[in-house]
C-alpha cells in the first residue's frame, strides 16, 4: 500500500509532464496547424541550456531556470518564421510539410546535444534542481523533496494552462480555431496571429516542462527527447488526436501506470508495459478513447 501511494505521487508528477507536453502538442496541431513531433526535443534542449548555465554560474538556480525558459522561447522565435511560411499557405500546403520541418528540428537538436554538450554523455543536474533531500520516509519508501516540488509545480502548471484555455479570451480563440477554423474567421479571429500566439505560448510552456523534467529525473541525455516524443505522440493518439481534456486524463494515467510498473515490477520494463497497454487500448478504440478532433 505504501509503495502504491508513493508511486502514485511519482506517477502524478510524471503524468503532469505528459499532460503539458500533450496539450502543447495538441494546441500546435489544432490552432497553429503544426504537427510538432519534436516538441519534446525542444524541451530537452532547454534542459541542456539550464544545465550549461548552472555549470557556468556555480549553480545559480534562478539564472538556470530563466535561461531554460528563455531558450525555449528563443528557439520558438527562431523557428516560427519557418512554420509561419507554411501556415500562411494553409489550405494550399499540406499540413504534413510542418511535420517534416519538426522532424528535422528534432534531429538537429538531438545531434547537436550529442556532439556539443558534455561529450555526448548524460548530464546530471545539481541538487539545487533535482532536490534529493528526503522529506518523508515510510518503511522502504522515501519521498524526495524534488518529487514534491515537481508534483506541486506540475499541478499548478496544468491547472494554470487549462484555466487559460477554458477561461480566457485567448484560450477561447484557440479552442474556436481548433473546432472550426472558418467559423473562427467569421467571428473575426485572425487565424495566423492566433496561431503564432499559440506557438509562443508553447515556448513558455516548454521552458516550464524542462524545469519539471530536470527536477523529476535529475538527469538528461541526448536521446531523452525522442523517447518522450514517442510517448507524447502515443498519448495524444490514444486520447483522441487533438482532444484537450482527453490528453489530460490519458497523460495522468500513463504517468501513474509507468510509476506503478516501476514500483512493482522493474524500472526497465515500465516502457514496455506502457506501450503494451497503449497497444491494447488502440486496438479496442482505434479513434482514441475520447474521439479524435481531426
Amino acid at each position: 500500500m505504501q509503495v502504491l501511494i508513493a508511486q502514485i505521487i511519482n506517477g502524478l508528477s510524471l503524468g503532469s509532464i505528459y499532460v503539458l507536453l500533450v496539450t502543447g502538442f495538441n494546441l500546435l496541431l489544432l490552432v497553429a496547424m503544426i504537427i510538432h513531433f519534436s516538441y519534446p526535443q525542444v524541451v530537452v534542449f532547454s534542459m541542456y541550456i539550464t544545465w550549461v548555465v548552472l555549470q557556468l554560474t556555480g549553480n545559480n538556480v534562478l539564472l538556470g531556470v530563466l535561461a531554460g525558459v528563455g531558450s525555449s522561447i528563443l528557439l520558438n522565435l527562431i523557428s516560427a518564421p519557418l512554420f509561419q511560411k507554411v501556415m500562411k499557405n494553409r489550405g494550399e500546403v499540406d499540413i504534413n510539410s510542418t511535420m517534416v520541418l519538426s522532424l528535422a528540428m528534432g534531429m538537429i537538436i538531438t545531434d547537436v546535444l550529442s556532439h556539443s554538450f558534455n561529450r555526448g554523455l548524460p548530464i546530471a543536474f545539481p541538487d539545487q534542481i533535482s532536490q534529493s533531500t528526503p522529506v518523508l520516509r515510510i518503511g522502504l519508501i522515501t519521498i524526495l523533496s524534488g518529487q514534491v516540488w515537481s508534483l506541486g509545480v506540475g499541478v499548478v502548471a496544468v491547472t494554470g494552462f487549462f484555466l487559460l484555455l477554458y477561461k480566457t479570451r485567448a484560450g477561447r480563440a484557440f479552442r474556436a480555431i481548433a473546432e472550426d477554423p472558418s467559423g473562427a474567421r467569421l467571428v473575426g479571429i485572425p487565424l495566423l496571429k492566433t496561431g503564432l500566439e499559440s506557438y509562443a505560448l508553447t515556448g513558455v510552456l516548454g521552458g516550464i516542462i524542462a524545469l519539471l523534467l530536470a527536477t523529476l529525473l535529475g538527469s538528461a541525455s541526448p536521446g531523452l527527447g525522442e523517447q518522450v516524443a514517442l510517448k507524447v505522440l502515443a498519448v495524444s493518439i490514444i486520447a483522441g488526436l487533438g482532444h484537450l481534456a482527453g490528453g489530460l486524463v490519458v497523460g495522468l494515467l500513463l504517468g501513474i501506470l509507468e510509476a506503478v510498473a516501476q514500483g512493482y515490477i522493474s524500472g526497465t520494463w515500465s516502457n514496455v508495459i506502457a506501450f503494451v497497454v497503449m497497444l491494447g487500448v488502440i486496438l479496442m478504440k482505434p479513434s482514441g478513447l475520447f474521439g479524435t478532433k481531426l
Partner: protein
Amino acid sequence: MQNDSKVPLLAVEDISVSYGQVKAVKQASLAVFPGEIVVLIGANGAGKTTLLETILGINTPISGSIRFMGKDITGNPADRNVRAGLCLAPEGRGVFASMSVLDNLLLGAHHNMRNVGKNLRRVYDWFPILEQRKDQIARTLSGGERQMLAIGRALMSAPRLVMVDEPSLGLAPIVVNDIFNILSMLNREGYTMLLSEQNAYKALQCAHRGYVLGTGSVSLSGTAQQLLNDPGVREAYLGA
C-alpha cells in the same frame, strides 16, 4: 438622422467573386442605409452566402469595391472588418457546437471585451433562453435556439451592420416567425440589417427593401412591397 439616411452605411459596387474557374458572384451591387432591413433573395446556390462573406472579408473580390461607413474596405481581412463594426451571423449550424453558449457569446465579443458585461446583459434580455442555457453545450440546443445564439453572438461585437445568413433555414414555421419577430425588434432597437433568404415571403414582410440574386448577379431590386407584388418574384420565389 434624416441626412444620415442619404449616405449608405454599406455600398457594394460591381463586385465579382470567383472560386477557381467558377464565378460565384458577378458584378453585384447593393446598398444598405442606416436603420434599414435589406434582404437578399435567391435560390440555393445563387451566391448569397458568398456575397455576405465577401462583404465581411472572408473572400477577396476579383473586381469591384466595398465601402462601409464611408471607407473603402475592399480586401480588408475579416478581423479588421469585425473591429470596424461589421458582423455576420452564419446559418444556425455555424455556432461552435462543442463549446458552451456563454463561450460562443464571448467569442462574438473577441474584439470588444471592454463592454462585455453590458452587451451580454442586453443579449440575455433579448434572448432569455440563452441565459437559461448559458452553461449548456451549443450542440444540445434546438435549431431555433442555435439561430438565436448565432444572432446573439453577432450582436456581442457591438456592430453597426448585422448580416444574417438564411435566418429561417431548416427551422419549423412557428420558429421562423419567432426569428423574424426578433429581427424586426432588433431593427426597431436601432440595428441596421442585411439578410439573405430563400423564404422570400417572410423576409420581404420584415424588410424595407430587397435585392433578387439569380446565379451570382442582381436581377431585380426594389422596396419590399414592390418585390412582393412583382409577378416574376411571385412566380419564382413565392410559389404563386
